[in-house]
């Protein structure tokens, strides 16, 4: 039977109507969770910018680089960054307007992986090399990374770096003493902040290296630290109190895209 034009249009109409019911359901709003080891926790980080970082302070970056065997490249194209500082106008471009002062625009703000609740990188990864742990960390399994860099493209915060060149060689060139506590990476894999999984999972009172270094540096300056870390699912956590009771405005980067970052900024 040859379908008439009329039959065809009817069928097409029904097909489109069908989409209303069985429509695409593949869009989960939360990435599936992997692992039970630390279930029940929700690690988060607060950057308290009410008093900005001491001028020129790099304590957080230095301790992170050292602990995680992160090489320093001169060419910014090769840079590997876990935690670093960006000017305010790059971190919160939507908060800047024609009357913003230069001081605010240029204010250095610590940035790192946001360990989103709804991480686009996790959805983009074709090998599940990047995944979400039960305690909310967006983790990397370097053993599975094939270097496709889809996650780099997917991350709205530029929090991922690709090893274009051999990091081990560079570390040796720099004369850095390799830490045995954390493997280096190789050329061809992506890496990023891991919220110091290797530390905080062993010992609930342990802090990420950056937070620890920030505390020390700030106490030397006789002031409160900028970085705070804790478990948001623990009702007695000081982090929760800081977010709820400090009276400061708590903001996240690019809230409008629905990634639900777990790095909060107090301003």
């Amino acid at each position, binding site marked *: 039977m040859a379908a008439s034009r009329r039959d065809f249009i009817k069928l097409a109409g029904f097909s489109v109507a069908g989409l209303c019911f069985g429509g695409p359901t593949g869009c989960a709003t939360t990435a599936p969770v992997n*692992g039970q080891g630390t279930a029940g926790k929700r690690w988060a980080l607060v950057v308290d910018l009410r008093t900005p970082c001491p001028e020129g302070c790099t304590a957080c970056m230095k301790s992170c680089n050292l602990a995680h065997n992160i090489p320093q490249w001169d060419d910014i194209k090769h840079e590997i960054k876990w935690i670093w500082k960006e000017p305010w106008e790059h971190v919160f471009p939507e908060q800047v307007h024609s009357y913003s002062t230069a001081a605010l625009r240029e204010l250095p703000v610590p940035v790192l992986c946001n360990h989103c609740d709804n991480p686009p990188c996790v959805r983009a990864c074709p090998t599940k090399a990047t995944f979400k742990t039960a305690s909310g960390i967006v*983790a990397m399994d370097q053993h599975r990374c094939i270097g496709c860099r889809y996650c780099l493209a997917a991350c709205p915060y530029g929090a991922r770096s690709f090893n274009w060149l051999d990091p081990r060689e560079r570390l040796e060139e720099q004369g850095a003493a390799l830490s*045995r506590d954390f493997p*280096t990476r190789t050329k061809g894999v992506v890496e990023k902040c891991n919220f110091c*999984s290797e530390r905080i999972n062993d010992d609930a009172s342990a802090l990420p290296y950056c937070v620890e270094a920030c505390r020390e540096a700030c106490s030397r300056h006789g002031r409160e630290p900028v970085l705070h870390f804790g478990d948001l699912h623990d009702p007695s956590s000081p982090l929760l109190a800081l977010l709820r009771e400090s009276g400061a405005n708590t903001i996240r980067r690019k809230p409008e895209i629905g990634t639900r970052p777990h790095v909060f900024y107090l301003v």
Partner: protein
Amino acid sequence: MFYDAGKIFTGLAIFLVGATFPFWYAMAAGKTAYKPEPVFPTSTSQCVESTEQMIAGHMEILDDWRNEVVRRSDREPIEINGTAYPKSLSRGCGNCHADQTQFCDRCHEYAGVSPYCWECHVEGD
């Protein structure tokens, strides 16, 4: 006798020497039928599992550890004779088998496997 016997036998001799060259060469280099001799730890006598299980299945143990640690955030240390060791290539296995070149590599060279783990994992001091 055969026709052109001289040429045939010279040819055969050259062929035999060529075909058996690897054996001569290995003999000359003193590498025939050697057994790998990994250097064992002296401080302890017990590995993660029995010796047989380790020889046959150490790569699977490493695989399990890696999945538990990296993917399931389960870093609960293992215990050998009352001492806790982290489930780690460098800090677990490496704690007892400190020199990878004297232990792992000796077997692996012999067996013709070259695990790429140490491109990232930092070997012992």
